[in-house]
């Protein structure tokens, strides 16, 4: 999401992203991932039937880290996949929409508990598209949502199950999740 926001804001349609405040350091992010891994295990009474799916492109790295932590905590291997929901978006004709990267769903999601992972939750439209996309692979038992940053401004009735940080923002601000942490900034 942050990636997409940044690209959208790129020329010719916008300007350049400038970070203003570091809201989470990389250590903060690691701790949040650790806590979310615990929460996911607590909510689902273990790692059985879990499948973690990162949304392209921002959620993919995070989904692997969550799976790594779950392995360390619980000692069991959770299948990890990635999902590009571009083809299910609702903004065709409003802006250019091109697929971003590969989708790889590790096995049949039917009967599994899918944890969708993204870096930033904003309007909720990407998640809506992802919910649609997942269903063309099978019928999961349940779908849960984990995000590193919930920045508000939802346009759909969607809420996250696991949150790294709740971050109040203005609409014209941008949130960037990267290796060194999380930045809040503007487009100039």
């Amino acid at each position, binding site marked *: 999401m942050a990636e997409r926001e940044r690209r959208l804001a790129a020329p*010719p349609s916008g300007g350049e992203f400038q970070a203003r405040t570091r809201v989470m350091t990389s250590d903060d992010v690691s701790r949040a991932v650790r806590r979310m891994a615990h929460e996911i295990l607590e909510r689902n009474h273990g790692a059985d039937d879990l499948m973690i799916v990162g949304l392209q492109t921002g959620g993919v790295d995070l989904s692997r880290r969550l799976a790594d932590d779950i392995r360390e905590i619980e000692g069991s291997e959770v299948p990890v996949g990635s999902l590009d929901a*571009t*083809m*299910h978006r609702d903004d065709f*004709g409003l*802006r*250019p929409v091109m697929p971003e990267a590969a*989708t790889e769903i590790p096995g049949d999601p039917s009967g599994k508990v899918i944890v969708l992972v993204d870096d930033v939750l904003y309007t909720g439209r990407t998640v809506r598209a992802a919910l649609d996309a997942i269903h*063309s*692979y099978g019928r999961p038992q349940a779908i849960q949502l984990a995000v590193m940053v919930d920045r508000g401004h939802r346009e759909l009735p969607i809420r996250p199950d696991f949150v790294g940080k709740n971050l109040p923002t203005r609409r014209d601000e941008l949130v960037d999740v990267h290796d060194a942490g999380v930045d809040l900034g503007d487009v100039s």
Partner: protein
Amino acid sequence: MSAMRHLLSMADLDRDDIEQLLNLTESFTEVSARQIPKVPALRGKTIAWLFYEDSTRTRLSFETAAKRLSADSMNFSVSSSSVNKGESLRDTVETISAMGVDGIVVRHSGAGAPHRITQWTDACVVNAGDGWHQHPTQSLLDLYTATRHLGDLDGRRIAIVGDIKHSRVARSNAIGFAKMGAEVTFVAPQTLLPPSLEGWPVKVTHDLDEVIEDIDICYLLRMQLERQEQSVVPTLREFHEEYGLTAARASRLKDDALIMHPGPMNRGVEIAGEVADRPNAVITEQVTNGIAVRMAVLYLLLGSGLDLVDERADVA
């Protein structure tokens, strides 16, 4: 990324355009592998099929592609339409346009017909074969199939063998493969070559045995049996011996060389029956890939909204 309005000829695409389409095809190959191979990307778009020439696989392939993208289609069959009452191509196109279509996929016996159609409609036009001229989606699916097996095509050698003269596939692929860096050789008797190949990025030989051991792709064209009465070759048996991919010749190919054919095949004419079933014959895979390629083309023209970028760039 550039915005295409129509897909008429491989000559209109540059290497970047082709690569973009092949990347996009990769995404749609994944969609086609899903339990429910359908995405809502072209919901609300209408595509008209304007097939003035017979076609089974191309038409089915396009229709399947459109369905997997959730587009609506307007069927038009020449035999049961006003064309039989003498309606001109232009009137037919304008009538269909007036009903509100977003895309027209056309096959016509006249070379250049798709280009003319673009002047009569606001819809995106896709050429599904015009006369002996072009068949760009066939070339794209061939390029996609070839790159999947061979990777980068730079410096690869492809021989296009058989009835070059009457083949839009040969013309499209000569341009397509050359643009992707491959070395293209036409192999045919003089009677099956166009009168002039000046300016074409190809070599020509009349001897298949001369090149068979060096090539990475042996691309066989359908011998158009209906032209046999024009006696372009003495007999089909002789053609098979001289220019067909016999079992003996197929065994002299490099180990990883691909055998390709746009279909429908005449087993025993351009290709020996047994050869078509060898593991390095990727003929059915070409058909499968055709759907994903056509999804990519329809999506790029009708759904991607890349033209929005250009509009914005124009303003800036």
